[in-house]
């Protein structure tokens, strides 16, 4: 982990988002969709941007290829400000920043092959060459047998594979995924995420994923930014942010909205990783301190290849007992954070 952080500074920044604001004028006044977003996405990242619906994540990803123009701020791709680009440059830039969508957005009147050839066709590649490339891409997404099929004959997962092949046709450096798995069932989501990870590793394509689904971030992202009400609430390494969510927005996303801390009670949040998951920490604490505790919630999730556990426990009302429990936990190999009932939500 530590050496990963050192190396990270040396990886070139591919997408640099600086102070991006997006304001929509409406009849009832201005709506601020993005309010000062700063993000640095480095080459080879699988960068997850997560937030509740309406948080502004969709607007943000559309700013990265300028389908939507920010009101203020700068977006640099490869050190070039895309907001200053002329139309021709912009169209050229979009060939290296591909995008896939929740609803796949395939051309319904073209076959699978025709869809994959489309971006090559508009970039002026000769048809014969485009067909060769399209067949290669079909192999990458394992849909060789569907070349002549029309999108209407495919399942959701197959459609998204076609969309991915189409996005990869122009050999982009970045792949933007706009809720790409939100219309798919969990099993198909897994296979699409595995494909994206494979593409990232084999071709070195930087991937930006926006989603409202935690499992997507957990499964493949290396970095995460939590967007809440048009601002970045928290960002960093996925494993770090998961282990120590600092903000209410992060906790809400990671732990689920159902978590409620009873007012006036002293509670602690314990976070642990696989090395200590096997030790019955809480049971040991009860035995060692002789105090009863109430387990309010707990979960174990696999994050970036590591088991991560969270547990929220309510300390006994007796201050001495509570102190003993805290002292005991401090000696254990777990992260302890005291939270009180009036935690800002």
């Amino acid at each position, binding site marked *: 982990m530590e050496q990963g952080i050192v190396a990270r500074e040396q990886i070139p920044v591919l997408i640099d988002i600086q102070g991006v604001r997006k304001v929509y004028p409406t009849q009832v006044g201005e709506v601020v969709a993005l309010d000062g977003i700063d993000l640095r996405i480095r080459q080879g990242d699988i960068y997850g941007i997560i937030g509740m619906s309406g948080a502004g994540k969709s607007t943000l990803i559309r700013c990265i290829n300028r389908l939507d123009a920010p009101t203020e701020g700068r977006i640099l791709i490869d050190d070039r400000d895309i907001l200053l680009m002329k139309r021709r440059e912009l*169209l*050229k830039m979009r060939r290296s920043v591909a*995008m896939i969508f929740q609803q796949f957005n*395939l051309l*319904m009147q073209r076959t699978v092959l025709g869809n994959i050839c489309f971006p090559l066709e508009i970039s002026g590649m000769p048809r014969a060459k485009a067909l060769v490339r399209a067949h290669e891409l079909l192999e990458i997404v394992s849909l060789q047998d569907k070349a002549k099929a029309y999108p*209407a004959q495919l399942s959701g997962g197959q459609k998204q594979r076609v969309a991915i092949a189409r996005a990869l046709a122009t050999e982009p450096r970045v792949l933007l995924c706009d809720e790409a798995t939100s219309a798919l069932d969990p099993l198909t989501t897994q296979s699409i995420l595995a494909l994206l990870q494979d593409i990232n590793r084999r071709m070195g394509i930087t991937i930006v994923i926006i989603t409202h689904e935690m499992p997507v971030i957990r499964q493949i992202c290396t970095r995460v930014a939590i967007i809440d009400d048009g601002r970045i609430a928290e960002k960093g390494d996925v494993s770090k942010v998961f282990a120590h969510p600092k903000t209410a927005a992060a906790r809400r996303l990671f732990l689920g909205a159902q978590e409620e801390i009873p007012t006036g009670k002293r509670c602690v949040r314990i976070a642990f990783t696989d090395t200590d998951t096997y030790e019955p920490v809480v049971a040991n604490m009860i035995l060692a301190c002789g105090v009863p505790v109430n387990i309010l919630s707990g979960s174990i999730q696999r994050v970036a290849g590591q088991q991560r556990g969270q547990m929220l426990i309510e300390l006994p009302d007796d201050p001495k007992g509570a102190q003993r429990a805290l002292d005991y936990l401090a000696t254990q190999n777990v992260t302890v954070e005291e939270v009180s009932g009036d935690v800002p939500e």
Partner: protein
Amino acid sequence: MFLNELWAALVSVWEALPGLWNLTIGGVWETLYITFASTAFAYILGIPLGIMLVVFRKDHLIPSPRTRSLLDVIVNILRSVPFLILMIAAIPLTRLVVGTSIGTTATIVPLVVASFPFVARTVESSLLEVDPGVIEAAQAMGANRFQIVCKVILREAVPGLVNGAALATTAILGYTAMAGAIGGGGLGAIAINYGYYRFRTDVLWFAIVELVLLVQGIQFVGTRVSRLLDHRQR
């Protein structure tokens, strides 16, 4: 008794058919010529106009709401003038284009003037059916506006455009009959001249049957072709 009379009637109709056919066949060809030529010219004007009515919308490819509302008003004005009046009003234009205001070819001019706004509307509604997400995907791929119109919007709308074309062709066929009443050619002229002025009810009915069959045929072909070209299902 009754059966005998019915049989006799059927025989006389049967015997009259070749005569009626010979009398009207020229009209059938004229009607087809006027209809298809007018439809073709109406589409030459209507497709660009329909495209403009779509892409100039404020959330579309080339937002220019003012130009669009101007076009919208023009289309509405042209569509609200009754065909018979428009045809008379168009006589100077017809003379200018064709050289005369009577006859088969002269009918085409007012028909085109009357039908291209309607065609533009059917084109507009077909193009609006194209999923905006697909247009956005093409934009994200770096397609320019011309490519998006030709390769995405028009291409994706083909089944709807074909259906609309069948609708427009049959509507124009209906108009040709009216044009026949005031000096145009075709089946309409025959129906009026024989059926109305000379009391030949048989000719009138025969012409009506032929018109019905033409409309059926065009509609049938249109629906079939549209279904054949539509890959959204199956």
